[in-house]
């Protein structure tokens, strides 16, 4: 408009111009102030946001760190679990091995026990050269080692026609004293003739005159006699493994001990017995 007025040659009022300038400047500054206020607000808001983001970032970093720690812990736990499993397996193996050793120890103990019985029995049986001594050892073996409550020892007696078995020792079985058993007759006679042991079940046959066990005493191929057990001690309920081993020992060693002691007593002592070797 001023340009128009200039072109038209008209001149504008200077007061009016001043007022307009003042108004313009006022508006300009007002708008500047408003803009500045807005800018300051926005800066403040941004600062708050940056602060929030910083906090959030710090939180996230903490989470991340704790996650790592948890991951490490989980790895450690997993490793420890593996170790525990390995240790348990080893412990189980060691336990089994230990049980195995205990079982084997018990077996060895039982075997040692049996061998001690057999050693002592054999040692004692051959430790005497007197017929009474041999019978006494047999007596002790049957009562204390086998647990026999009543038993008898029959020896072979040659007779016309058929051999007989006569009792030379009886313990708690008076009924057999003075009797004879024909060869190959009854359990006792058959055991002597066949050289086969008879071992019954104590729980079925307990007591009475029926033999519970017959052990033929054999030297070479000859039957020397028979050991007959009629009854076991009250506390002895059955024959056990070591009894069968003792029966085998009795079958072989008692025959030689009986024959040896018989011959020894006949020859007249050690010196006379040794003379026999001079002829060799």
């Amino acid at each position, binding site marked *: 408009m001023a340009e128009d007025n200039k072109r038209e040659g008209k001149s504008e009022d200077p007061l009016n111009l001043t007022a307009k300038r003042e108004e313009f400047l006022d508006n300009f500054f007002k708008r500047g102030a408003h803009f500045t206020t807005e800018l300051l607000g926005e800066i403040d808001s941004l600062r708050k946001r940056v602060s929030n983001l910083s906090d959030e970032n710090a939180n996230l970093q903490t989470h991340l760190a704790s996650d790592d720690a948890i991951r490490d812990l989980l790895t450690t736990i997993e490793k420890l679990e593996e170790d525990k499993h390995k240790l348990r397996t080893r412990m189980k193996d060691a336990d089994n091995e230990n049980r195995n050793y205990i079982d084997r120890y018990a077996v060895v103990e039982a075997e040692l026990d049996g061998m*001690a019985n057999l050693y002592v029995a054999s*040692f004692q049986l051959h430790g005497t050269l007197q017929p009474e001594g041999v019978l006494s050892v047999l007596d*002790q073996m049957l*009562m*204390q*080692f086998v647990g026999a409550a009543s038993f008898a020892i029959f020896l072979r007696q040659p007779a016309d026609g058929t051999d007989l078995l006569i009792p030379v020792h009886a313990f708690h079985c008076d009924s057999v004293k003075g009797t004879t058993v024909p060869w190959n007759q009854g359990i006792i006679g058959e055991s002597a003739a066949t050289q086969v042991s008879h071992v019954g079940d104590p729980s079925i046959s307990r007591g009475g005159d029926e033999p519970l066990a017959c052990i033929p005493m054999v030297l070479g191929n000859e039957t020397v006699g028979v050991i007959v057990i009629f009854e076991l001690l009250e*506390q002895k309920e059955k024959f056990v493994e070591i009894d069968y081993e003792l029966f085998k020992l009795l079958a072989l060693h008692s025959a030689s001990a009986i024959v040896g002691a018989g011959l020894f007593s006949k020859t007249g002592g050690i010196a006379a017995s040794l003379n026999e070797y001079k002829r060799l």
Partner: protein
Amino acid sequence: MAEYTCLVVEDSPMMRQLITFALSRIKNLSVVEADDGVDGLKKLAQGRFDIVITDINMPIMDGLKLVKRIRSDAIHKDVPIMIITTEGAEEDRQRALLLGANSYITKPIQAPQVISKVKELLKM
């Protein structure tokens, strides 16, 4: 030198040998043997024993009399006594225990049983 001494009173040489053999498996235990009750008393008078093992049926002096004598002995009255016998009846067991025996085992013996009882009585 053995820490403990055991007196075995048994008339059967075979049983004595077997019991001694079983006891030889116990460490620090020495064994003295006696043939019967009287021999047992003689051996007791000669030394100090930590345990006595005795049979019942023996000549001269039986095991029950021996138990009675030991229980009235000033030195050995508290010594543990184990009976090893063929007598398996309950009344025999009770009689022996009443007289002062501490343990009662019947024959035929099992070595592990004897060893375990001796260890128990000696608190080994």
